């Protein structure tokens, strides 16, 4: 399974970069999200995969008695997902505004800075 995950991580990175290199701003955001997903999975994988043992202590005991999944990568990813969402929503609204003003999605048409808008 880990090997399949590694394949998916590579694929997500490749797809993310490919989309990031497009001229369409919409695709850039998609690329950004793909990259984010890829990185999250990578961190998750590096914490090692453990099946069915969430890092939650039993009702009865005060410490872990069994093996458990690594909690630190999970905490990191949780943060990353939330921050990623902040970034995505801002970017989505931003390109919506750009659309509205300039009526284009093409990055190459955004090359004037001081134009009256």
């Amino acid at each position: 399974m880990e090997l399949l995950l590694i394949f998916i991580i590579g694929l997500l990175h490749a797809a993310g970069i490919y989309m990031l290199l497009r001229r369409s701003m919409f695709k850039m955001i998609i690329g950004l999200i793909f990259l984010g997903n890829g990185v999250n999975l990578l961190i998750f994988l590096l914490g090692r995969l453990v099946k069915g043992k969430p890092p939650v202590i039993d009702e009865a005991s005060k410490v872990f008695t069994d093996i458990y999944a690594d909690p630190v990568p999970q905490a990191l990813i949780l943060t990353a997902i939330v921050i990623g969402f902040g970034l995505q929503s801002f970017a989505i609204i931003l390109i919506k505004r750009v659309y509205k003003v300039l009526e284009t999605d093409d990055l190459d048409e955004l090359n004037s800075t001081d134009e009256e808008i």
Partner: protein
Amino acid sequence: MIFAVISGFLSAALLPLFSKINKNLVPKVYPFVPLGIFVYLLYLMPSVLQEGSLMWNYPWVPSFGVDLVFRLDGLSLLFGLLITGIGTLVFFYTSYYLKGDEYLDRFYGYLSMFMAAMLGLVFSDNLICLFVFWELTSISSFFLIGYKNNDPSSRKSALTALGITGFGGLVLLAGLIWMGFVSGTFSFTELITTPEVFREHSSYIWIVVMVFVGAFTKSAQFPFHFWLPGAMKAPTPVSTYLHSATMVKAGIYLLARFTPILGGTAIWQETLIIVGGITMLFAAVHSLFRTDLKSILAYSTISALGILVFLLGVGTQDALLGAGLFILTHALYKATLFLITGIIDHETGTREVTRLAGLQKVMKPVAFAGYLAALSSAGVPMFLGFISKEIMYEGVFHSSSLAWVLTAALVITKVILFVAGFWVGVKPFSGNLPAEYQKVHLPNPLLWVPPCILAVLCLLFGVLPAVLDGFVQAVFISLVPEAPEIHLAIWHGFNWILGMSLVTLALGFGLYLFFKPSTNLILKTQTFDNLSPINIAESGGRIFKAFAWKWTGFFQNGYLRNYVITILLFLTVLAGYRLYDGVDIHLDWNQISQITPSEFLVVVLMVASIFFALITKTRTGVIVALGIVGLANCLFFLYYSAPDLAMTQFSIDTLTVLLFMLVLVQLPRNRSFSSRKVRLRDGFLSLMFGSLIAILALEVFEAPSYTEVSDYYAENAYILAKGKNVVNVILVDFRGIDTMVETVVLVIAAIGVFSLLNLNLNPFKKN
């Protein structure tokens, strides 16, 4: 002493304040700065003559061995007196010459800055300080040459001068640092005690070359001479001060200072003879083809600098003494000639020597100064120029086996300089006064007194050379440590040297009578312009500029994706190079978990959605694919013991898809912007990068993992924080402040979103 050096900087720095209070007072007050230092130096003179040298030490950056050590010996005293003495006259002269100029106060600021830098340069005992002051003189010279900043040619000349001298300065810095490394000290006083350290060192040749480049660029030696005629675009006081009397002699100063340390070898002496010899002849001949007074002076100055370098190269005791004396002689007569040129320009409005004549009728004192200076320049007996010429001839005549050739070269140069001096100092004043200049009158004494003072000194020192004895002796000692005692005399008896002097005078006078300045001659020389160093330098500059333009345009092209491509390519190549030797991975198959059918299904779903997102043309399609990828991710988290992540991912994914749908679905269909070729390139690059990440992930995965941090959190989650969900405890307790800051980030993003949504662009826009 330190105050004497920095007072110029201080007065330059205080200038804005001062000129706010009363702008008209600046020209009246500032001349007293150099005058004060001049008097101070004169006051120090007896102790210098007695003790040989005085030292002042102010620690600056002791950890680097850089201290403000000032050393005053004969040579630096000579320069110091020239800088402040001629400086005083120039400061006074300027107050009338540029009277009413809008930026006169600024001009004084530059001049003061220059003076301070120049004093620092000649007084520094530390090589690094010397370099700092050296560059400061280049910079202030740049401002002074470009003073008429609305004239394009003036700006260009300033840039050329800065380019050449700045380049030389940097090369010099490399040489000086190298010297410091070789000898372990940056102090002149210590260096001079161990000259053999350098002469026997393997990098001697490089140090010498670097010092030469620094000195030759500064002192306008062939083939770097061309910035100096251009620098004559500066107002005449600047040409007088910087480009004849002081700054251009900084290179000579440097060479003279380094001669006891680096000199004495064939490469040092012969290079100086060759470069100095070419410069003096080349520039002297050039001066004959000029009709603009300042151009004539510029080339004769270059020629004089060539003579000085040449004499340092010849290196006999008399030659060095002649060089020391010629620095003084030249500064006196050349400054006079420049100043009177300024007066002529100021009063008649022209500097064309062919149009000027007979001015002695209307400006007698100026003519008087011009005659005296021209005679001193020619080396007529009873003038200081004669004495320095005699000693010079003596030194060269008794040098090596090639003495005849060298002496002949010097005599020819001197003959031509005779003519150049007469053209500037005599021709405009003699003959019949043209009608157009009948109304010209004598200017304000502030203009004509300074050249007269200098001209009288030329004569005075020539008639009574004994007054200079002690001073020249001190200069001599700093050039030649074991110098014999000298006595300057007007008369050296009947010998070969006197014969050569007379030949020089006769030939010079003959040439002056028969060879007339003419504009036709300039036109003839223009055929060779393509080969002249200035054109080579300029085309070099153009090529460099074009290259810089292309280079910058290539990397800083303004396309974000090209930057991304460059970074990725670099990263992939760099990391890929390491993998070139093969990847060494030993997978522990026990570590790898089994694949269940449901997991496999999720993987297939994910891969399919990614590819769908890549190829689909509809926006909605992409968003749906994106949602599926997110949900599949969510399932992975769920399978592998991360319920919190799964929940977060699920809600965030849903929100993102909703947001996308709401905002973007109304917009037009995706267009295909890029060509097939570009897409193939990007696809290839992305695949490379993806594979790289996958390989790295595999490598990290098979390495042992360290879990100290995780174990600590897991064990203490309940004991310390009373929580059983460890992930939650980490986020809200152990790393609570991080989470709080994260919330702030989200709030900022929310404010951004909110304001973007409500942003009303151009509320005042019509229609």
